[in-house]
């Protein structure tokens, strides 16, 4: 608990430190990392806590991004209207997709969630009224009121941080609640959970919908951050990226999504911005293939730290703090 507060405090002070070092540009980058942290955390709820390997999480992130952007484009400028609308749309979509795909298990579940997400990808691709495959550019961010100007990158950063803190706090409470215990039990032994009297499908679906809603919230922030959204937000590569973040950070670990998002995006950034002399000699444009470096790191993590970076650091078994 204390280390969580320290981590949040560090994140809260980060922009001040960055501007003191004259690196204000990084506030935007940090916002992006935190938004991905929210998305990865929401995936971690289904994947890590619920044991459901969903390969279509980008559908919920992308739906949140699109619905909030369309609301804005249609003149609903208040965040208090557009954002809940987007989150509800993602939750509704998760309910529909979950109701069907949660009837399957294993590889079939992975494939059917992927298929649904790809359907959504092609759907937004064909939405010509909202940019089609070129995406949708927003004139400005939504309005928050309360005297806060979301257009200001610093304000935006703190809003994102607040959402992340609430997401993590919510996940922590959820994991230790009655509901969370049942979801964990289903992950450990589904037939037994049914045999002691739990309607397994209902719990799994509820978990899936909650994760979809938080994924949608991340999508809202993502679109708002870049003032732009394109169908790529729903592409299966995006689902894969989120999955990699969760695995990197720690499957079923509270901070897994945060650490994974920071590690992956940080790594990509390092590879792209800081050329390594000898590597440039043999592979001149290796920096355009940042995933090469990411692949190596992922390999190392999976082979030597299957519990992810968080697991490597804490080393305490079963401690979901």
């Amino acid at each position, binding site marked *: 608990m204390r280390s969580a507060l320290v981590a949040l405090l560090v994140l809260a002070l980060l922009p001040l430190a960055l501007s003191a070092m004259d690196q204000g540009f990084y506030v935007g980058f940090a916002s992006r990392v935190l938004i991905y942290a929210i998305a990865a955390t929401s995936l971690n709820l289904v994947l890590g806590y619920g044991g459901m390997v969903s390969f279509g999480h980008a559908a919920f992130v992308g739906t949140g991004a699109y619905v909030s952007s369309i609301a804005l484009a249609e003149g609903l400028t208040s965040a208090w209207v557009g954002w809940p609308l987007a989150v509800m749309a993602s939750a509704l979509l998760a309910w529909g997709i979950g109701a069907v795909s949660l009837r399957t298990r294993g590889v079939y579940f992975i494939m059917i969630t992927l298929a649904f997400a790809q359907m959504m990808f092609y759907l937004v691709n064909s939405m010509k009224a909202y940019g089609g495959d070129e995406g949708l550019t927003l004139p400005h961010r939504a309005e928050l009121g309360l005297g806060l100007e979301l257009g200001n990158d610093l304000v935006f950063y703190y809003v994102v941080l607040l959402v992340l803190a609430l997401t993590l706090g919510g996940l922590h*409470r*959820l994991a*230790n*609640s*009655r*509901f*969370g*215990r*049942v979801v*964990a*039990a289903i992950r*450990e*032994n589904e*037939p*037994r*959970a*049914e*045999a*002691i*009297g*739990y*309607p*397994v499908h209902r*719990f799994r679906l*509820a978990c899936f919908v909650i994760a979809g809603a938080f994924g949608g919230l991340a999508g809202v922030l993502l679109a708002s951050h870049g003032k732009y959204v394109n169908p790529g937000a729903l592409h299966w590569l995006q689902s894969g990226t989120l999955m990699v973040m969760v695995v990197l950070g720690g499957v079923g670990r509270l901070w897994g999504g945060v650490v994974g998002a920071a590690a992956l995006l940080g790594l990509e950034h390092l590879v792209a911005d800081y050329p390594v002399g000898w590597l440039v000699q043999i592979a001149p444009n290796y920096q355009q293939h940042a995933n090469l470096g990411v692949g190596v790191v992922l390999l190392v993590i999976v082979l030597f730290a299957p519990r992810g970076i968080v697991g490597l650091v804490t080393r305490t078994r*079963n401690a979901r703090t």
Partner: protein
Amino acid sequence: MLELERLSKHFGGVLASDGVTLAVAQGQVHALIGPNGAGKTTLIGQIVGRLKPDAGRIRFLGRDITHLPQHERVHAGLACSHQITSLFASFTVLDSLALAVQARSGSSFSFWRPVGTEMALVDQARGLAHEIGLHERLDTPAAALAHGEQRVLEVGLALATNPKFLLLDEPMAGMGPEEAERLMVLLEGLRARVTMLLVEHDMDAVFRLADRVSVLVGGRIIASGAPHEVRQDPAVTVAYLGDERAAADR
């Protein structure tokens, strides 16, 4: 209390349950015995709701439960312990029992309050741990328990749902004599409040605990009665006990 009416179930060409009719009266310990492949597991699957019968009906406390899903049968008061130990590996003894208690006390769609602060759940789980003799292992994960302890926890999970009827599928399987004795004492203590259907290979346990014995052979009940009657039934001797008698004679 539990009535099976001409229950039939086949897998391909194999008739695993061939019109099974069986009644377990309230307050009894009813033992079900039969050689391997007699269809015991299939019958249990249908009673708990894991398998759908092809024909026939199941009545529990006067209510037709043939089409009731498994979890609702638990809520009606029908619990079972499994032949093959099936636990929540990383859950401690206390957490496992609390989880099972939780299943029948209040809604589990509660997302905020930590389970650890629900003293009613925790206290009941502790009480149960005491009853089944695992009170010194409360914080041990299920996976780290000895085999005999896991078998006891298996029964404990079923008990934690506060059942009126307990279906025990070979509870003594793989237990040493001392552990089996402890479990038998536990089951004897339960008979006052729980009706039981005991599927067991251990004949000592069957004849010590059971008020009635039914014999299942080839998917059919070939005999049913008090233990001493069944023991002397010639058909049973041939079909089932024959093996053991023959072995003893040699």
